[in-house]
């Protein structure tokens, strides 16, 4: 598959760049400077991941059922306009969302989690909805004709067939989420943003990179993790990554 080989080529390229950067860093004595920030990096990375885990987890828990609900035939009359609304919502910059949530919830972890939650919610809900709606009508008719109840149809036919698209949504959403967490620092929630923004303010490149590089690594890590879960969870018959 061209897309897969492209993405693996990109990953390889990234790894090589990373390696070269490492060599350069070693030579210029940067590594020692980074070591200085190691305790901060560790502490803030954990905080960073927590922010992602809580806001992302909440978003999955809310967005998937929301997408399921919107895809039910009984609400199909409003579903489209609601999806349009969500689409518009997606275009609002995350920083604006954070700012808004701060103006309601004040400073700290709570508004950050809420803002991240909202930003993550939309792609997942949209993909769930689209994934479920794109299950072929013939399949639905076969499932109904066989005597499955609406719930059985959802669990045994619709969700398994939409799962790949849903996971793609989760993957996108978490990538956005983890990349947005640094902004949470601006409203006092910590995370690797602390190193990034402080580094920028102080013209301290090393400090800034000590935040930026781990953020990038975490993003890749989470992405690979979701890809792995997708690979394992989505049934082989409907999993493009597992087609023989």
């Amino acid at each position: 598959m061209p897309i897969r080989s492209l993405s693996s080529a990109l990953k390889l390229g990234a790894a090589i760049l990373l390696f070269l950067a490492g060599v350069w860093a070693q030579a210029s004595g940067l590594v020692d400077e980074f070591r200085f920030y190691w305790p901060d990096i560790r502490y803030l990375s954990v905080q960073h991941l927590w922010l992602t885990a809580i806001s992302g987890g909440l978003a999955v828990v809310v967005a998937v059922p929301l997408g399921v609900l919107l895809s039910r035939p009984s609400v199909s009359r409003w579903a489209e306009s609601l999806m349009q609304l969500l689409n518009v919502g997606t275009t609002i910059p995350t920083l604006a969302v954070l700012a808004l949530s701060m103006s309601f919830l004040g400073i700290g972890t709570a508004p950050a989690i809420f803002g991240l939650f909202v930003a993550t919610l939309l792609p997942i809900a949209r993909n769930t909805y689209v994934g479920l709606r794109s299950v072929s009508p013939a399949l639905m008719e076969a499932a109904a004709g066989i005597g499955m109840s609406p719930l059985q149809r959802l669990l045994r036919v619709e969700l398994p067939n939409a799962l790949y698209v849903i996971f793609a949504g989760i993957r996108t959403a978490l990538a956005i989420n983890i990349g947005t967490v640094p902004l949470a620092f601006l409203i006092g929630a910590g995370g690797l943003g602390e190193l990034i923004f402080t580094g920028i303010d102080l013209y301290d490149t090393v400090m800034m990179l000590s935040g930026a590089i781990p953020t990038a690594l975490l993003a890749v890590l989470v992405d690979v993790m979701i890809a792995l879960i997708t690979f394992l969870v989505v049934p082989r018959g409907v999993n493009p990554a597992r087609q023989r």
Partner: protein
Amino acid sequence: MIRLDNLTKVFDTPDGAVVAADHISMEVPRGEICVLLGPSGCGKTTTLKMINRIVRSTSGKVFLDGEDTSGLDTEALRRNIGYVIQQIGLFPNMTIEENITVVPKLLGWDKQRYKTRARELMDMIAMDAEAFLKRYPSELSGGQQQRIGVARALAADPPVMLMDEPFGAIDPINRAVIQDEFLKMQAELQKTIMFVSHDIDEAIKMGDRIAIFREGKLVQYSEPDELLSAPKNTFVESFLGEDRALKRLNLVRVRDVISDEIGTVVGNDTLTTARERIDAHGYRDAILLVDDRRRPIGVISRDTTGSHQGYCRDHMRGLPAVVNLGDDLRKVASLMFAHDTTWLPCVDDNGTLCGQITQRDMTHHLGSRYRARRSAADSEKPVGS
């Protein structure tokens, strides 16, 4: 077994009401295949889908086994009806085994039972269980998928089957093979089947009865032979095609047309005797020679009796062809053309002579309007032919 009583469906569309099925009343006896046939958009699918409530009827009733189904729970009703949709509709997220055991699982069978059933079904549709059960639908050819679709519908052994152009997506050669397999299966299973088709030849081959639809109305509901010999109106006539008399060849069996009066000679008869019998029967070119158990072994030609003396056994010619009582007239006609003859001897399953079939008898039989119910009663359907 399946009885429709004034079943009607009106679709409300932006351009006004569309009457897709207009007071359809018909009955399919237990164990028979009824083919719904007609041009596109005439309401076949709609009628079929009202039986398992994929489409809600506007009015009218469906009875299964004498029971009004409107009182039944929708899911329970559907689990008792095998359903094969035109688009096949296998679940791509499930293996073949999971696909064909879906209904047994819904019905709560235990694992041992539905696993055994899956293998049984694969045998039935002539597919290798070991090779296919663990595959996914996307790893099968179209024809294989279609068979699995049929197997899935048969899984819980429902008494009634609804099939919407089940063999539509297959090329003609494989379609004929699957049709034959299906008929063989049906001969054993004796399901009551409603079968949608828009292929007249398929309808004649598969149907014990054929229902012709036109613009939502049931125009004619007859057995195939009656349909072909006595179309009710010009619409049916033109739908069946100019060659409908030829199509009947498939339906009529040798035993329906055979004349048991046939003169024969045996090896020990003299050519003079042969000549006398030829003249007595008014045969034009030859007389049949049989052995002592009345099995046809050759012919004595008229010319030979004129030019030679002696015993028949020394002057026989080879037999052009022999037809069996169960053969259809299409085969007979083909043999007659191939051997340039106007008559053929007919034998039973033991090879014993039963009579003969002549071109004139065939023409007469096909040319006459549908005459006697009698022949319908004793001529079996072309099941498994």
